[in-house]
């Protein structure tokens, strides 16, 4: 029996391109310009908020002259005074969403002045514990780091840590002619690809929290960018149909 031969006809692709005047048959082509995808890294940038304001009836004053680092100088302070000070952080325009942390460090010209009362105030009363958690190590008793699991974003552009605190009444005559300092700094880390800052079950900081702690070390205003503006290129991404040879055909 004759095998049925399937006649395979050569595939022919006939494309008839109607060309304009001159009627030269030209390749029917289509192409797209090579696409350049540009990857520009965004930035994360924050402002530390540190303000001083007077409180009616207080005997302390805010000096007009700020400290070299931009902080405030309070004078005539006595134990028991409620100090008007706002500390927080805000998102800079154009910044990506970020998790934040604020570090508070205390020191004094009085040797061994006990700062635990102020630390306890920050931990328990003046700071909203629904919004902030803290890292505190008794080995470094005069420093405390607060961090938030709520990110700064366009919808949540600023967060306040506290707006006042009390000079401990446990301090007495030993503070006369002396002073104490409160140093504040802020850190931020991108939200994308990171879980909110927290301590892991083993008690060590997770990635976000560790990034925040590392960022404090830089402690200068500025942001880091993961890479410079870069370009990605790709070959024509669109359909390209390019018959190699002129064809004629009329089907």
């Amino acid at each position, binding site marked *: 029996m004759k095998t049925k031969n399937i006649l395979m*006809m050569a*595939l022919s*692709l006939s494309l008839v391109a109607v060309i304009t005047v001159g009627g030269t048959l030209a390749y029917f082509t289509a192409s797209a310009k090579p696409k350049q995808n540009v990857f520009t890294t*965004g930035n*994360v940038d*924050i402002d*530390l908020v*540190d303000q001083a304001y007077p409180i009616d*009836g*207080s*005997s302390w004053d805010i000096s007009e002259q700020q*400290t070299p680092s931009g*902080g*405030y*100088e309070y004078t005539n*302070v*006595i134990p028991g005074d409620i*100090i008007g*000070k706002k500390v927080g*952080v805000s998102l800079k325009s154009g910044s990506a969403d*970020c998790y934040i942390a604020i*570090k508070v*460090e205390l020191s004094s010209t009085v040797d061994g002045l006990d700062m635990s009362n102020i630390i306890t105030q920050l931990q328990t009363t003046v700071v909203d514990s629904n919004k902030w958690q803290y890292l505190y190590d008794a080995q470094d008793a005069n420093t405390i780091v607060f961090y938030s699991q709520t990110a700064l974003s366009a919808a949540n552009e600023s967060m306040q840590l506290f707006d006042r605190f009390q000079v401990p009444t446990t301090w007495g*005559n030993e*503070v*006369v*002619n002396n*002073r*104490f*300092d*409160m*140093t504040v*700094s*802020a*850190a931020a*880390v*991108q939200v994308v*690809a*990171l879980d909110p800052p927290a301590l892991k079950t083993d008690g060590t900081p997770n*990635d976000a929290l560790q990034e925040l702690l590392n*960022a*404090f070390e830089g*402690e*200068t*205003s*500025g*942001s*880091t960018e*993961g*890479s*410079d503006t*870069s*370009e*990605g*290129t*790709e070959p024509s*991404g*669109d*359909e390209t*149909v390019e018959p190699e040879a002129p064809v004629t055909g009329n089907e």
Partner: protein
Amino acid sequence: MKKKNVLTMAMSLALVGVIAVGGTMAYLTASDGAVVNTFEFVQGDEDGNAITVTLSEAQPTATGSESITSNGKNGYLYENIVPGQSLNKAPEVTVTAYTPSYVFVKITDGEYVSYDPTTVVTTGADAWKTVDGYSDVYYKEVGVTSGEKDLGAIFTKVKVKDMNQLPTEEVTDEVQIQVAAVAKGDLTAKAAAEVAEGIYQDWQGNTASIVPAD
């Protein structure tokens, strides 16, 4: 009939992202600060005192035939007094304050001798004020003083009990006066008086030893 076959070329889309040469991808971070705020406490005297109070008393003059001599306890010894006698005694308070303060005076009567509250100035510009809940405690408020400020006498007389209330034998009795100063801040007088309670104990106080006449 020729089949019309449509040849389609597979599309291939290749995306190549070129990252900065040699760059390690790191999380984006930022920091701001450190900002230092300084809190200067009140400047006091060179010894580090923001408030200094003194209690003193000039030699009193006798009202009768009693003899009055220093008692070595910062006060005076009255001898040969008679029952019911009113004696001159006017302890004075001074204060040097570098910050607004309350100055408290606390009087503790003896068993047989007591201060005369009618001699405490409680009206007018120089009045001593009383504190709710505290008896025999008086106070004045001062601002920052330029140097030592004299707050005047707290009282000017003490009274000896009547005959039938005195013991028959010689006895030494005391009227104790204590002084304390508390920086005002935003404390009420009552709150400050409570702070003063804890300070009084350190004071020796001004006492008057009173020895009844035979």
